[in-house]
């Protein structure tokens, strides 16, 4: 079995570009096993390396995905293997799409995205511009601003909830307000004005601004100094004019990547919402993004896995459409000139 191919392989190894020798003709057709293994057993190695990942992806991503689409057509309370008589067709989709709480959660999430994406973008760009101008201690400030990225969302949320923004007089925010004679505010429990947004948005800003700052710094360092020199020669004033006409346009590729990542991250918002606002008895009806709502529907005491799956499918479709539209709009993958 190895005779002919062994020789052929030897030939391939010795003479680069001699792969044509394996082609049927001179040495005869290689056996099926040999063909499956491929030249230099490349197929074998391909599957040895890719196989475990592919199996994991199939088992833990695609099978559950397909299963949840299947479940979404059933009245699957407390079961993942519903019987035929529990088939309800599109009922779950209909009730999800007329469910005020679910539609409200989509609105919440839109509001969150509209706010958090520009805010993080502006903050991390500003940080990058400042750090980039530093003449000394640049590495220090880069690290300091990047450090929060290493903190987990859960830990940060707990610190925000219990020590900075707790509602009693000895919370950090209330202590500071107390110096100016203001009353204590229950940050996470008040809906009018909706102070909870301040808590949710600041925790995410603190956690992720440093990471995007690093991306912007890399982008800034790629801009050729000649451009700035040429602009100066042409009479561009340093500051806003240079930023507007040189720096910002040159950061286009970085900006596209940053905005895409930010939007995807906002889509996946769960950790800080859940840890800031949930308690043993459930989750309040405000600031409830779709993932949190579906988590309670499908995996909470409800165990309404059919309805939850229908919601997940709807959400997945929305995310897919949004991503495609966004990629088109930004011209993602288009060649840069």
């Amino acid at each position, binding site marked *: 079995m190895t005779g002919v191919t062994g020789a052929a392989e030897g030939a391939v190894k010795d003479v680069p570009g001699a792969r044509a020798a394996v082609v049927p003709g001179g040495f005869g057709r290689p056996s099926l096993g040999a063909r499956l293994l491929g030249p230099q057993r490349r197929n074998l190695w391909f599957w040895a390396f890719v196989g475990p990942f592919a199996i994991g992806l199939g088992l833990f991503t695609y099978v559950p995905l397909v299963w949840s689409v299947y479940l979404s057509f059933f009245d699957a309370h*407390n079961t993942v293997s519903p019987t035929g008589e529990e088939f309800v067709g599109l009922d779950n989709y209909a009730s999800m799409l007329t469910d*005020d709480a679910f539609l409200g959660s989509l609105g919440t999430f839109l509001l969150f995205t509209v706010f958090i994406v520009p805010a993080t973008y502006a903050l991390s760009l500003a940080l990058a511009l400042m750090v980039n101008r530093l003449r000394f201690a640049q590495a220090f400030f880069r690290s300091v601003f990047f450090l929060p990225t290493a903190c987990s969302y859960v830990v940060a949320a707990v610190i925000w909830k219990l020590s900075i923004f707790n509602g*009693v007089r000895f919370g950090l925010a209330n202590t500071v307000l107390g110096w100016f004679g203001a009353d204590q505010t229950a940050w996470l429990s008040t809906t009018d004005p909706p102070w909870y947004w301040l808590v949710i948005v600041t925790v995410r800003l603190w956690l992720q601004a440093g990471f995007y700052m690093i991306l912007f710094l890399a982008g800034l360092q790629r801009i050729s100094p000649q451009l700035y020199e040429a602009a100066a020669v042409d009479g561009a004033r340093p500051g806003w004019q240079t930023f507007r006409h040189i720096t910002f346009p040159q950061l286009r590729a970085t900006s596209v990547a940053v905005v895409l990542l930010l939007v995807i991250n906002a889509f996946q918002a769960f950790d800080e919402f859940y840890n800031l606002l949930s308690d043993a*008895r*459930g989750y309040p009806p405000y600031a409830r993004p779709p993932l949190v709502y579906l988590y309670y529907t499908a995996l*909470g005491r409800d165990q309404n896995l059919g309805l939850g799956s229908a919601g997940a499918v709807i959400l997945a479709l929305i995310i897919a459409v949004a991503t495609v539209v966004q990629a088109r709009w930004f011209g993602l993958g288009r060649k840069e000139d």
Partner: protein
Amino acid sequence: MTGIDRRRLLAAGGGVAAAAALATACGSNTGRGGGGSGPGISQWYHQYGEPGVERAVKRYAAAYDKASVSVQWRPGDYDRQTAAALLTDAGPDVFEVNGPLLDQIQGGQVVDLTAEVEPVKDDFNQAVLAPKIWQGKIWGIPQVIDMQLLYYRKSLLKDAGVEPPQTLDELVDAAKKLTTKKAKGLFLGNDGGVGVLGGTPLFAAGLSLIGEDGKVGFDDPAAARTLGKIRQLYADKSLLLGAPTDWSDPAAFIQGLTAMQWSGLWALPQIKKALGDDFGVLPFPKDGAGGKPSVPVGAYGSAVSARSKRKAEAKAYAKWLWVDRTEYQQDFALSYGFHIPARISLAKKAKELREGAAADAVRFATDHGYAEPLLWTTADRTAYQDALSRIIKDGANPESELKTVVRKANAELERVKKK
């Protein structure tokens, strides 16, 4: 400058990974030692906060001589863990559950325990036994009774010239008078009472969640009027919100952040230790002409999984522990935390429940206790809590909010009756 060299970092990383792998291995251990082929019964409990409970339940299990029982102590989100485990064969044989819920019974996840409980059925507290019964059959054995009640600080009320409130209007007034720059009048949980109150104000108004006729019990103008008064508490800024601990923990009350707090009976020993005699207990005060005081009672039930491969043994064990061995039931209820035994005969015998605030609490539970009915499903509860949150915090119109909940509850009643 190097600080940690690369080798040490890798070694540390490896250690962390190994620890994580170990933790995962523990997490998936179902206590059956070979994927369900062992001869033993596995029993699950949620993690009780009181010291000694774990040792006690293991001691009871070890005393059972007909089969070997392995007890699993499950920290974390217990409801969710059991819900997930009941979908598979790897779940427990016997487990305690905050239910069983109607969907679990209808979904065939738990087995009928009527024959086990029947001989002593009348000795169980009927309020907590009722939600374990569906279509005449008993699906869970009540373990101990938990209840909630209102704690108040006698000295603070006296200083403010306030009498212990007997009606909801008096409670609203008292909370307002007791609120100072440093402390609030009343603590109903960090969400303003949305989560913990549930049907309590409705019962205080003489209504119910699901009536005895099987219909929605709060389709009544009185419901909107009562919930409007809870909104008043919030609007007056009399409620403590955003405390470091929630309603279930007496810390806010003991630290003087609030003059009154709604909490559980389990908090009583801790409060007594900290405040001595400077506190009293009340039921949720009545509201309106048809109103009556109300306290919520409930019991974790011991249930047997329908997926169990040893159903007969598991049922026999559940009966042995929660029906036959009254000395263990008494020990479990009173030696660690503070609960009322689910058996009337045991509750009568308990010395700890005969004096002071504890005796008052037991009286409230007997006279004014209500349990959430089995027909009040999780979907109903979510809809009701959402409405309550909008009424209390946003000042939404209680009537229209309640109409939405009534509609939802009617739809749910339709759904569960079809099965």
